[in-house]
């Protein structure tokens, strides 16, 4: 029997909780695959910077120099605009919804279609669950408060904020705290309670707006070189797929536990004020998001195809969740 020795890079540093360390992380995925395959598929995991810089995994897997990369697909929007949808779009699906679309609603097939020209396949392999709007030094009462607000917010959400007058600042992770603390920026988005607390953001700003309208369930992506994938026998392929699906759930579960603990601590012990954004602000953000997404979809047929599939699924899922999850949370749970 052939033994496969693979390399997997990550966009996150060695030791990052959730992404690189702990249940459902890249390291955990490699361990599960090794154990299930009885050592026939050995994956050596490298944190960001060890072999390549954080955001170079796409090219490395494409070239086949490493077989796998663990990151989020929206880092690759500069290479293929459609990649955004396989991580999160603003006002998008929640954890159950995105899994419904990916596993059973045609999402997985589209994901592979988007990566086919690059000779890669991908699958979901973790999820942060709903993230947070972010940390604000001042209260946000209505849309006017966004005008001239200096905020660290990357990506598509940044563009949406910018259209409402926010001054979007690009900052590497390490500079968020000092910049927010000193008031170089007035607000910053990072991940969720557990990760944000580790960065110390609650010591720099008191208002923690909820919830993650821009990232309602952020998918971790396992990216695989297609040629390498095709060389795996069927049982190893099944092992990889099942390990990834396991990590998808286990990682999200880890986030639920740690975020609920961290949020309790932030509110009870650290004096953090957590509240949702005002309705008027959410409405304005939604309107702008629809425009931005429509604009992106209009530029490229493949993006449009993915967009349409995603939105069609979402429309159906929204109607269902309204009478199921939502009704439970609002009327039943108490």
């Amino acid at each position, binding site marked *: 029997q052939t033994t496969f020795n693979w390399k997997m890079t990550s966009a996150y540093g060695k030791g990052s909780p959730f992404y690189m360390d702990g249940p459902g992380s890249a390291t955990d995925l490699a361990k599960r695959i090794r154990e299930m395959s009885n050592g026939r598929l050995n994956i050596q995991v490298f*944190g960001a910077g060890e072999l390549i810089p954080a955001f170079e995994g796409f090219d490395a897997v494409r070239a086949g*120099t490493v077989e796998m990369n663990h990151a989020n697909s929206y880092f690759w929007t500069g290479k293929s605009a459609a990649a955004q949808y396989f991580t999160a779009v603003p006002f998008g699906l929640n954890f159950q919804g995105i899994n419904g679309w990916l596993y059973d609603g045609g999402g997985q097939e589209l994901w592979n279609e988007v990566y086919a020209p690059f000779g890669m396949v991908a699958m979901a392999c973790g999820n942060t669950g709903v993230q947070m709007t972010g940390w604000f030094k001042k209260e946000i009462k209505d849309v006017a408060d966004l005008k001239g607000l200096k905020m660290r917010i990357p990506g598509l959400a940044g563009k949406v904020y910018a259209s409402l007058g926010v001054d979007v600042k*690009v900052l590497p992770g390490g500079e968020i*705290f000092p910049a927010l603390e*000193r008031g170089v920026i007035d607000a910053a988005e990072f991940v969720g309670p557990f990760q944000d607390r*580790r*960065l*110390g953001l609650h010591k720099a700003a008191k208002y923690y707006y909820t919830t993650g309208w821009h990232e309602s369930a952020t998918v971790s992506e396992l990216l695989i070189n297609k040629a390498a994938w095709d060389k795996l026998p069927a049982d190893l392929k099944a092992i990889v797929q099942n390990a990834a699906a396991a990590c998808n759930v286990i990682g999200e579960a880890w986030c639920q536990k740690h975020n609920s603990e961290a949020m309790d601590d932030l509110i009870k012990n650290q004096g953090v004020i957590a509240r949702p954004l005002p309705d008027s602000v959410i409405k304005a953000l939604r309107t702008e998001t629809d425009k931005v997404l429509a604009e992106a979809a209009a530029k490229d047929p493949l993006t449009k195809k993915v967009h349409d599939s995603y939105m069609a699924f979402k429309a159906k899922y929204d109607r269902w969740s309204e009478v199921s999850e939502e009704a439970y949370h609002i009327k039943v749970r108490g």
Partner: protein
Amino acid sequence: MFEPQTYAILMLVGFFVLLMLGVPVATTLATVGFLFGYLGFGDSLFNLLPARIYGVVAGYQWMAIPLFVFMGVMLEKSRLADDLLDVMGHIAGGVRGGMGVGIILFGVLMGATTGIVGATIITLGLLTLPTLIRRGYDKSIACGAICASGTLGQIIPPSLILILLSDIMQLSVGTLFAAAVGPGLLLAGVYIIFLLVLGMLKPDLMPPLPQAERDAVSRKQLWVRFWKVVVPPIMLVVAVLGSIVGGIAAPTEAASMGAVGAILITIGAGRFKWQVLKEVALETSKITAIMMFILMMAQVFALAFRGLHGEDLIVRMFEWLPGGVNSDIWFMMALIFVLGFFIEWIEISYIAVPLFLPVLINQGVDPVWLAMLITVNLQSSFLTPPFGWALFYLKGVAPPEVTIRDIYKGVVPFIAMQALTLALVFFYPQIALWLPKAIGW
């Protein structure tokens, strides 16, 4: 064919040999990296090299280098800082080593504005080294003081080391910044005491300005010159620091305020010309390019070291450990120190920290304290020959009569003082831990 690890050892040996023969540092790094990499694992992994090169040239954090270099070169070219140290010497009066102390203090101020070692060393090297030598300072002492002063920037926040460690160790950058203040100032204090004591024991190494020359300048004249030459550079540092503290600029971009300030000061002094601006910009781009060129070539070496499983060499050494928290910590410290001879701090952090961290944290070691021990220790990697960034930066801008041998000789006492400071932080953890607790970071 050997085991990959054997090639890793051969690579280190080859690195030493070529370096000692006088092959340029950058060429040496890439040559041994390519040679032993190809022998050990073939060419596949080198396909990742362009990604690493792109990571270097597109690295936002390096933006601070040209900004600070520009500030330093502008001060030098505008000839405003020509007699900066002379004035400091006048102020120090008969105190031997007074100008050396001035350099350390300047390093503290610069360190508070940047986390880039090269920037401080190049600025100080350009501004002060020629004057110190002309004033009869021992070349080695002068070089040692400048290199040590420059590395202070890596412990006094903001600092790239602290930012990277916070990422690898998953700690708050704010906590690490606060914790580093104590050890950073302690290190500076130890340097200053050393220079003053050395000045008393061996006055010839660091002569004060001659009595006659000091007498020739009246107190009032000195005061005027103080305002003209000492205050402007300090004001630049204040401008940079002030723009960070005042919430105007993020740490990396803050240096641009210093660059603009340097132009304004030159204009104010009536010495501004387009020609000067162009010369300064050319010098800045040259210095930046060569620093980054060495860093790019270091990528070949780092990639090969990884590909040859150089980190396994360290794991094997780890197995010899007798056990016990303190011996584990000291082993880690010894390892980081030894690695500092060969490779640069970024690779050391990526290799050594994840290796020891879980073991030490499980034994209840305070991660913030551990991060400070690592940070103090990593200072040495900048200074330890043969591969020390501080040494190369200074050599790059030093007058021709300064040899790398002078620099090597000069940094030795300062490395010893870093070891002393490391021991102090080890035995008195509160040096690092009280400030974060006191201000609640």
